[in-house]
Every structure is written in C-alpha cells, then in structure tokens.
C-alpha cells in the first residue's frame, strides 16, 4: 500500500503533466477511467495557474495572443510550478523562461516586456515603507559619506532593456483601440518601476541617473555608485542626484540593501 508521501508525489507528477501511470493505479474509477478523474484535477491546476500568469502578464498575453500564451504557460507550469501559495508571487521566472522558449524567438523583446510586468507586479504587492528624509545623510561626516549605502523602497525595480519596452507596454493597453506602431530601432529603455500611493508607475531615467540608482539598489556604496554614474556621463552631479533621490522618496534606511534570494530588484537583460 503506498504511503501518503508516495501518493502525493505521484499525484504531483500526474497533475503537472508528467507520467500519470502510478497515480492511476492509486485512484478508484467509480464508473470512469481513473485517468479521466485525474484529468479533472489537472485541468483545474493548469487553467487556474494560467489565469494567474495572465493576470500578472496581460501585455505579454496580448502580444502573443491568448492561445499561444496558454501553450507557453502550460510548459512553464511544468518546469516551474509555484513554490508557495501566494499566486501574486508566481511568475518570477516567467521572463527567463520566455527568453529561452524557442517558439518565442521571433519576438526578441517579449522577455523584457515580461520583466517590466513582473516588476510592476512586485511593486503592487511590496510592503509599505516610510521614506527617509534627506537630513538623515546630512549629518554623515564627509570622509564617511563615500562608504554609505542606502536601502531603497522595496517596491522599486530598475530595469534596462535594449528594446523600447515602455512604449510597447503603453501601446498594448486595453484602452488603446489602435495599438500604436512602435519602432524597435527607436532604442532601449532604462526604467524605474515603483508603487506610488496605490498605483504602480514607471518612468524612463537618463543614463547616469539610472546607473547611479541601479548601483545603489544593488547595495553599492555612494562612492561606487558615483564612479559608475560618472563613467556613464562625466557631467553627472552627485549633489543634485542625491537631492532628487530623496525627493522621490526612494531611500528608506541607511545601510546595506537586504537582498532576497531569487528576487533581484535590479534587472537587466542578460
């Protein structure tokens, strides 16, 4: 007689689209093929997880159409089922999956659109944080300022793409009856995505400011972030960059950014 652990393990395999042979032997037919009974459950697992991904990645779905999205989601669910019961946290790896999914090769920007939508999802559900006033760093001795690190608002993602993913996203909103034509040759985007009040917002940053904030978000200190920003633009001005950073309410604490494994707030295309 199989143990509970064996039953659950074989059910998991069957429900995620693997071999349902062992599970079939554990289930009573009760007037049906055991496989038909397992299929009722598998249908629910796949359709509800697909719906969860569709809710998180509506623009990706619009770009590839619903049928293809369901096909891609089905494959993704098999290789990366949710690791926990909060479905708003499901889909962290969907962008990377799409980047390596051969049928998506003709849409090179698709994975970065998914990265943008994932950043928006993270922002929506991030914990509330209280911004730090700029006077918090005004008392730091100048010789120590360079080694200062800042924890940024947990809703923030800094995302760069070689494609104009912000314009692609805007052109594919449901209230845009005629999707605008976006020229991929228009160049990439350096975006800051965050929550503002109850809304998720994103905007393009200029190259040096992006590099500066991106370095801080990775846990780099002020000296390192400034050096990176100056390399991107010799005219970069630290004083005004810090004023803008605090005016935007991004720093929430002095000290290193606590990093959550597998949930990198700084995303760039590989």
């Amino acid at each position, binding site marked *: 007689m199989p143990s509970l652990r064996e039953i659950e393990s074989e059910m998991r395999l069957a429900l995620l689209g693997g071999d349902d042979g062992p599970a079939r032997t554990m289930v009573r037919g009760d007037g049906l093929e055991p496989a038909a009974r*397992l299929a*009722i459950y598998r249908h629910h697992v796949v359709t509800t997880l697909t719906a969860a991904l569709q809710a998180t990645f509506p623009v990706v779905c619009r770009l590839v159409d619903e049928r293809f999205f369901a096909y891609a989601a089905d494959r993704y669910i098999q290789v990366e089922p949710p690791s926990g019961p909060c479905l708003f946290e499901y889909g962290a790896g969907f962008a990377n999956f799409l980047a390596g999914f051969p049928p998506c090769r003709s849409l090179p920007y698709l994975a970065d659109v998914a990265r943008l939508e994932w950043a928006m999802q993270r922002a929506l559900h991030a914990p509330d944080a209280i911004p730090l006033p700029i006077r918090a760093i005004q008392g730091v001795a100048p010789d120590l300022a360079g080694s200062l690190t800042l924890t940024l608002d947990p809703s923030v993602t800094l995302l760069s793409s070689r494609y104009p993913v912000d314009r692609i996203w805007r052109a594919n909103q449901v209230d845009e009856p005629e999707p605008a034509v976006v020229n991929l040759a228009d160049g990439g985007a350096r975006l800051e995505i965050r929550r503002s009040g109850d809304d998720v917002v994103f905007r393009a940053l200029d190259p040096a400011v992006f590099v500066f904030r991106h370095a801080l978000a990775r846990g780099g200190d002020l000296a390192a972030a400034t050096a990176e920003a100056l390399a991107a633009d010799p005219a970069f001005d630290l004083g005004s960059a810090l004023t803008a950073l605090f005016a935007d309410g991004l720093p929430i604490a002095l000290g290193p950014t606590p990093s959550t494994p597998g949930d990198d707030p700084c995303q760039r295309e590989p």
Partner: protein
Amino acid sequence: MISGGAGLVGIGLRAPHVAEILAARPPVGWLEVHTENYLGGGPALRALDRIRREHPISLHGVGLSLGSAEGLDRGHLARVVALTRRIEPALVSEHLSWSIAGGAYLNHLLPLPYTEESLAVVAAHVAEAQEALGRPLLVENPSSYLRFQHSPIPEPEFLAELARRTGCSLLCDVNNVFVSCRNFDHDPVAYLDALPASSIGEIHLAGHAENEADGRVILIDDHGSRVSDEVWALYARALERFGPRPTLIEWDTDIPALPVLLDEAGRAEVAITRSVAEGGSRALAA
C-alpha cells in the same frame, strides 16, 4: 437567543467588490477573504485594514496544505499568523486537503486518502497551526472528484475524529457535501448526520456546475452561480441538525454584481430565521 438570521450571514469578499463595500457599507453580517490574497503589502492590505473597521472578517486559507506528508510550510504559516494578528478576524479556517508536494504548490484543494496515516498527519498539522495561531482553526470538508483505492474511513468520520483529537471546529460546506455525495452516490443527509453538530462553527454555501465526463455527470464545485435548490434544501436540513451557524455565500468565478450576492445572503437569513422558529415550535411540541 438568536431571533433571526441577520448578522449571521456573510459574503465572500472578492476584488471586484472591494471599492463598493468600502463606499456603500452594505448591510452584511461579515466578510470572508482568502488569506493568501493579503499576505503582501500595498493597496489590497490597506483596503482590508479599512474594511475590518466596519465588518467582522473571516480569514479563509487555501494554502496551508494541512494534508501534506512533507510537513507544513513554516514560512507560510508565519505569514498567516502575522496577518491574523493584524486583522484580528472573527474566524480562521482552512481545508481538509493538500496542495503542496515536493515543494510545488499545485493551486488546488487536493483530496486525501482517508487512512489512519492521513489522520495522524492532518491532526499534527492542525495542532501545529493552532499552536502558532493561538486559536482554534475551522477545517472545511472538500469537494471531491476522485477517491483513492485505499481510503477506509468515511469522510465525516475522519472530520469528527480530527475535531476530537485537535479541538478544531469544522466548517461544513453544504455545497461540497452535495457535490461529493452526488459524485460518489452517497446520501448527503446521512453525511450531515454523521458530523458532530457541536463542532460545526461555520457553514459555506455556493453554486456548482454540472459537467459530463465519458457520459457520466460530474458535479464541479466552481462557485460560479447561485446556490442550487437542492443545496438550499440540504442547508435547511443542516440548520435543523446543527442549529443556527455563521453562514457564508461564496462566489469565485463569473463574479456577479454585489446585489446578487446580497440577495443570496438574504435567502440564507430567511432560512436561519425559519429554522429557529421551527426549532422553537418543535421544542414546544415536545
């Protein structure tokens, strides 16, 4: 003495109705939310913080996976405990099911074989959750579309023994009783009669769908329509047997306008009022 059903009947609060509930404060006894939708921060949690000031809240979990042989996800349990402390709900409930195997969450309330082994696993997890929460849990009977080859304990007896061992209460989902009994040719009234009335702390009502698989009708618990007449009749029977209990109208797919849910809630209130009156006259006649 409870003179009527008002106050005892709640509705499942779903995202499309949050703004309307906050603005209109409809006369509803209480609201039940899915715990897992509020374990992040942001606007969802802020809205719940506001709603709890106006209405009693029930936290209905779908993710603890009480029947997982590999043990409870302690990180998830800690998040549920934190939300429970924050919201101070009137009721906290979960399901007699499992959803997690090999670290994968399968997003379904999956059936258990009803064996001594399963009973020991679920009872240990209910005890662990109650210890962490510092309060009793309500455990809901599932809707089922399959049974295991080896599953010797009848479901209501399994639930009764679980309540006896852990002190948990039971959430009797009358629609689930109807769906499972119909799918396996059992008598739903006999099922209700086998549950310990004193352990029933909450009742759920919802709609179901009729699907066909290989020429056989299978009822699917899709929470996508009004409560069926047969389930209303079974609810009257449940009230007669258990007495008046907090009752919830659940609706999760094809969610209708709020007045439809309030109308269903009104129907449950009438049923409770009637059962109390009839219970009174039975007592007088005895």
